[in-house]
């Protein structure tokens, strides 16, 4: 299972943090700092894996990917395949890119709620629910439409059949 997803910038500022097992906020911050301390000391062109057990305890692995000013970090246990999780990071970033057209750190900062929505359509309670970037986008767009509609007329359709078509 995936234990946590974090996005932080190269200065160590958290841009997104989602823990799939409940942790008090102080503990979350401690873990994020621990991860950043290791990440910021890593060179370019090395592997995408770091030893997670010293930070997250036994049976944990960590895979990260560095894009421009952001680190995308996934923490998970031995029931997941490391490279497959790396693919997942790529899917996440590609989806963000589709959503924001050339995504940059500021998009992630100011569209915090949207990034959340995307992540929720991809990972559900620590398990991967969707790996297809276009399927994730479809779901996110449906939600956006629904929000826009309800904002405009504050009325929601009784059933979702209206957006059933693919």
């Amino acid at each position, binding site marked *: 299972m995936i234990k946590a997803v974090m996005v932080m910038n190269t200065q160590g500022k*958290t841009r997104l*943090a989602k823990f*799939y097992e*409940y942790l008090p*906020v*102080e503990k979350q911050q401690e873990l*994020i700092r621990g991860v950043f301390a290791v990440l910021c000391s*890593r*060179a370019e062109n*090395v*592997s*995408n*894996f*770091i*030893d997670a057990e010293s930070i997250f305890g*036994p*049976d944990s692995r960590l895979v990260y990917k560095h894009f421009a000013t952001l680190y995308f970090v996934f923490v998970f*246990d*031995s*029931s997941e*395949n*490391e*490279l*497959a999780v*790396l*693919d*997942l990071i*790529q*899917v996440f970033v590609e989806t963000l890119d589709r959503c924001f057209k050339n995504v940059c750190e500021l998009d992630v*900062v*100011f*569209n*915090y*709620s*949207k990034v*959340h*929505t995307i992540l*929720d359509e991809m990972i*559900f*309670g620590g*398990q*991967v*629910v*969707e*790996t*297809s*970037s*276009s*399927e994730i986008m479809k*779901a996110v767009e449906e*939600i*956006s439409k*629904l*929000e826009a509609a*309800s*904002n405009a007329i*504050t009325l*929601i359709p009784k*059933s*979702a059949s209206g957006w059933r078509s693919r």
Partner: protein
Amino acid sequence: MHGMRGLSVFISDIRNCQNKEQERLRIDKELGNVRNRFKNEKGLTPYEKKKYVWKMLYIFMLGYDVDFGHMEAVSLISAPKYPEKQVGYIVTSCLLNENHDFLRLAINTVRNDIIGRNETFQCLALTMVGNIGGREFAESLAPDVQKLLLSSSCRPLVRKKAALCLLRLYRKNPDVVNVDGWADRMAQLLDERDLGVLTSSMSLLVALVSNNHEAYWSCLPKCVKILDRLARNQDVPQEYTYYGIPSPWLQVKTMRALQYFPTIEDPYTRRTLFEVLQRILMGTDVVKNVNKNNASHAVLFEALALVMHLDAEKEMMSQCVALLGKFIAVREPNIRYLGLENMTRMLMVTDVQDIIKRHQAQIITSLKDPDVSIRRRALDLLYGMCDVTNAKDIVEELLQYLSSADFTMREELSLKAAILAEKFAPDLSWYVDVILQLIDKAGDFISDDIWFRVVQFVTNNDDLQPYAAAKVKEYIDKPAVHETMVKVSAYILGEYSHLLARRPGCSPKEIFSILHEKLPTVSTTTIPILLSAYAKILMHTQPPDQELQSQIWAIFNKYESCIDAEIQQRAVEYLALCQKGAALTDILAEMPKFPERKSSLIKRAEYSEADTAEQSAIKLRAQQQTSNALVVTDQIPANGATSPVSVGQLSLVKVPSLVTTENDTSTDRALSQQNGASSKVDPQPPSADLLSDILGPLAIEGPPGATVQSEHNAVSGLEGDSDAVDGSAIVVVEEQTNTVQPIGNIDERFRALCLKDSGVLYEDPYIQIGIKAEWRGHHGRLVLFLGNKNTAPLISVQAIILPPAQLKVELSLVPDTIPPRAQVQCPLEVVNLRPSRDVAVLDFSYKFGTNMVNVKLRLPAVLNKFLQPIQVSAEEFFPQWRSLSGPPLKLQEVVRGVRPMPLPEMANLLSSFHIMICPGLDPNPNNLVASTTFYSESTRAMLCLVRIETDPADRTQLRMTLSSGDPTLTFELKEFIKEQLISIPTAPRSPAPSAAPPTAQPSPQIPPNDPAAILAGLLS
């Protein structure tokens, strides 16, 4: 969502804060604002509520506690409109944990949303429940979630979330969520075409099979089918193709699920799977595109893990090792990393260690990789692959690397080097060299146990003493040495420097002054050791040296008033003792040998290994297979002569054993039983803390006489064959025979081995007997793997085969002793002379300490091993069937009391015995026609035909017709199949229970209306 201006402004404000203090002020202000607004909730529009909630979540992410608004959040869930409801669900799942009281308030609403018809609401509710997964949710919602998952009217979007929601509830509360009877539904879910739903369902399956694979056998072929479909890229929509690869994620998950099944018995499924795996192994290349590379290798590494799990043929295994060997040398760091990691896992598979050793040079190169993650994996692998044959090379590499290794790795590195040096030292002087180098290069990381252990070896080993003394003197001569080096040097020079007295620069005076030079630089814990050394040097100085004496006495004098109690006491006592003259020699005599005890280092290593044992499939399997995975030495021939560096060599230097008994206390107890009288004289428990031996006052208080006894016990116990022990052992043996309990069910192990060719035949706390077999025609070659799980040798090992009349069995020589933690392979040749169901028995015995263990084990050289499936066409079948017209070549019997099973299961059962179903030959769907070839010396290859007619109305009875060209074969095979069909799982070889007709003789009558004959007549 784009339009939340308030939120953007707030985020900008935070970004503009110059320091943490400003940020805190801004956030406090915002929290106050949100709190106020929520107080008069009436005036809030849904939009505002949403805005505030996102602000709260943002603040939470920044690391500030948001401890209000929980009630408001939960109550929003029951709002009728989407935006409010959405906000309620999101904030609840982020801020509340599963035990929060407020959640109870929401259960009814959540349930209504789940069972309601609004899919948006369903998704919101499922997401929240899935993220929190509380017990009360599980109790009241699990059945509804199950229904959603199976509902055909739901969109995939909802169903895939339902699958994962159920998984989460099950994981968190396995006692509440009832999954009995889910096997069929799971199998049905695996037929799903939508890859999104299939992905989620596969995760659910992984969770279910990891808990209980037995119930989910029916899912196994479906998983293989899915994998096959993906691997062939059949019917995979574009959106699930990732860089040209059909859903790598689902491929990986499917292979993961397959690793939870212990084996794959159905030959067709197995073949299909191996074809897919073979294609993945061979068809994956390193390409330019990083993402494509990652994805294809994700699949490849999972395939490797699955191959390892399935314990494929040796050929495929070597192929895997070859691939891994290629990976650890590629440019792509991720692949290097995983290559090393998987090689480490591969070590658990028997037979491949030698192939892995060929890559040693490359692995050592990886120890210098720029990436610390890769260096760590390389270290793990080197540690895992080290054995007596390569210990010297590996440990020396580690030592060399130690000086340049980064700080974070040094501790682990030095600990591992110390453990390997101790476990696999080809000779003890080398061991001393290694540890001293370790202390010299990485003194800060050398724990006390490491230097205690050296002292223990040196003390117990007379030959080693002058060498060690000379060696430490070299080190201590250097200007700056680590304090640990001072400690170990002081101890060893104090005890043994007199052995060097004739060498230049080693007079007592010189030794003393070298040591004393260090005194101002050391801490108070080291000074007592130095004082002891001085006292001992003084005692050994013959003839007495007045000048040295006055120097040392002056030092004792000085420390008589030391503030540290330990130093003070030693100074006072040594001074008093020195003045006693001759008595000093007795009291300060050389330390007695230490009782043998398990190395605390190795204990620690084992503990940490057990500690981190993860529940992954590979590990699970490793535990089932080789619990002695710590070390597997090469096969040691019975005469022990050809092995260049055998473990036995160590005993040449009179050290009882490098690694001592696993079970200290039991050995100790056994020893005191043997020497009942002496144990009263010697009340000192041999398990006294090592620390107290060296640092404690034992040096003064322990007159050698008292401890020598216990030392003698330890040594004789370890040698095990000394007369005294043997004499008393005879009595003990009688009492203790078979007190050793086997691990696992011997019957079950045997039955499993009847169906597969490798596995564990027997295991108890001391030994594990594994078996690997190859069958060709009427010949069989079995290898028995006798693995000693302990750190003491197993002795008086004996294996005798009691073959039945039909088998010719030759067992190669079994060594009398199995060295500690070693695995010995004993090949066994089997020739099948004629058909019979009798079973060969292995009479195996060994002695551990005083425990004589004897077990009689059935060998899985059973009838079905000499069968080979053969597909027979209708043209071949019917003439043969007709030509064998009646008894004794063709026998028929109505069997009652059959274990009821569906026809496919029966077909699988037959296939597992290598009896191949020939579909389509019998038009009646309730019948099975099968064929096989039997091999024996008397019959040669002989075709056997089987027909089973079942009654769909009564599955407990069937009619079976067998034919072959040999009457005994026909009879034996019929009885064999019958046993399998009616067998009660616990007693497969016992004669059929009362349900079977007591007449062993086959009924010779073939009724005139034999359907087979009619069928044949119709078709011919």
